[in-house]
């Protein structure tokens, strides 16, 4: 790739800067071949064009906008020091100031970044951590969703989950399901013998019968206490 076009990721998408000493038709052609050479990378992209002092007429800018549109690329704004270019951009309905774009775009961005998506009861099964090995003493796992372990959870290992905990193996460590207070959370294991089991604000320990036969069990909260029954 030559250096006549530089790309930079910004909050609003991509900032495209053109080198001033290359003619507009030429720069248009180079930009299109750059997009075409990158496969689907630009598909759906929003670009801001930094044109500098170059004077670009309306039809020239419109031409580039059309070519970009055909490639699935939307022009958000044109940044230029030239009044002619700024006028061209405005006539095409494009913004000429990045800060106005920023102001409008940022609330949307922040919402996506800061707020975790609300846990919809019907969607809860989709989030979680899958551990495909034995969790040994001293290992810890936390998930804002569910935790599934394919292996044993040995004494000394700790699992915490906002949702459920499923262990396809022996559960001997400490486990806390529904850490954010979800009393509907459950803990299931092929052999349920945790050092300590917590669901939401409830806490219990395993009954003391060493010679019991391991069987799949499910623990949950019923009538304000944790109970376990056969997991079927």
């Amino acid at each position, binding site marked *: 790739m030559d250096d006549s076009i530089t790309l930079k990721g910004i909050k609003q998408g991509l900032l495209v800067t053109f080198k001033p000493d290359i003619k507009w038709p030429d720069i248009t052609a180079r930009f299109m071949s750059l997009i075409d050479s990158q496969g689907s990378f630009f598909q759906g992209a929003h670009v801001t064009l930094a044109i500098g002092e170059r004077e670009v007429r309306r039809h020239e800018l419109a031409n580039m906008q059309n070519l970009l549109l055909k490639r699935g690329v939307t022009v958000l704004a044109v940044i230029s020091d030239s009044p002619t270019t700024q006028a061209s951009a405005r006539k095409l309905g494009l913004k000429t100031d990045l800060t106005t774009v920023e102001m409008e775009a940022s609330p949307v961005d922040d919402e996506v970044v800061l707020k975790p998506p609300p846990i919809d009861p019907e969607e809860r099964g989709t989030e979680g951590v899958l551990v495909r*090995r*034995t*969790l*040994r*003493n*001293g*290992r810890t796992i936390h998930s804002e969703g569910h935790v599934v372990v394919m292996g*044993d959870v*040995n*004494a*000394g290992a700790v699992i915490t989950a906002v949702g459920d905990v499923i262990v396809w193996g022996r559960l*001997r460590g400490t486990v806390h399901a529904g850490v954010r207070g979800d009393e509907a959370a459950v803990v299931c294991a092929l052999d349920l013998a945790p050092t300590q089991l917590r669901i939401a604000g409830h806490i219990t320990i395993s009954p003391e019968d060493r010679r019991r036969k391991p069987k799949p069990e499910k623990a949950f909260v019923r009538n304000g206490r944790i109970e376990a029954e056969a997991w079927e």
Partner: protein
Amino acid sequence: MGARVITVTSGKGGVGKTTATANLAVALALLDKKVVCIDADIGLRNLDVVMGLENRIVYDLVDVVEGRCKLRQAMVKDKRVPDLYLLPAAQTRDKTAVSPQDMVALTNQLRPDYDYILIDSPAGIEWGFRNALAPADEVVVVTNPEVSAVRDADRIVGLIEAEERKIPVSLVINRVKAAMVQRGDMLSVSDVMDILSIRLLGVIPEDENILVSSNKGSPLTLNNQTVMAGEAFRNIARRLTGEKVPLLKLEQKGGLLKRLSRLFGSSDSTA
């Protein structure tokens, strides 16, 4: 290719790491292998005592790392067997005197000339353990049939498994008392394997002779005594060389141990 570096570790102290290292080193040397043991327990060295080489130490591991002597000068030759050397730990320094990179460099220097390099790891999971683990091609975890020792072994295995490079880990269960297991008062080999689920390299019965030989500085495997524990260590050494030796698995179930004990005239089964 050169030597295989085997680190002997446990997490918990006092389970028999040093005893195992000394006995395996002697047993391997008696199988005509060229062996070096490195005591990585800097500040609390014991391997030299158990091997009976304490009074012949001039330089140590830290002297080598800090360039005060050549590697050859620090190595103490055990004259009782053909090709066995000890690289002792420093007693007056703390373990931060050596880094994991130092250990890797040191073992790489030794590799071409030996068949086995055994590293006796200190207890714990900190610096000393990291030093001992860094150059390992293979790790032998020693544990006792006792809940706290098994917990620590589990922790160690977890730490080794979390390493980026895959290091094979196997288990030696030391100090198994057949009679207690039979009565259900001690974890059995299968109880331990249930929790740790790694390759079982061997089982060593509890034996007073081990303590006696450690105190004398003459590892059990050195004398061709017909002692169960010595036999068990020799079997482990043969397994390390790739030989298929059946595990004396039944010994803690009682039957075989009693028969073998009678055969060897050991008093172990009545303990």
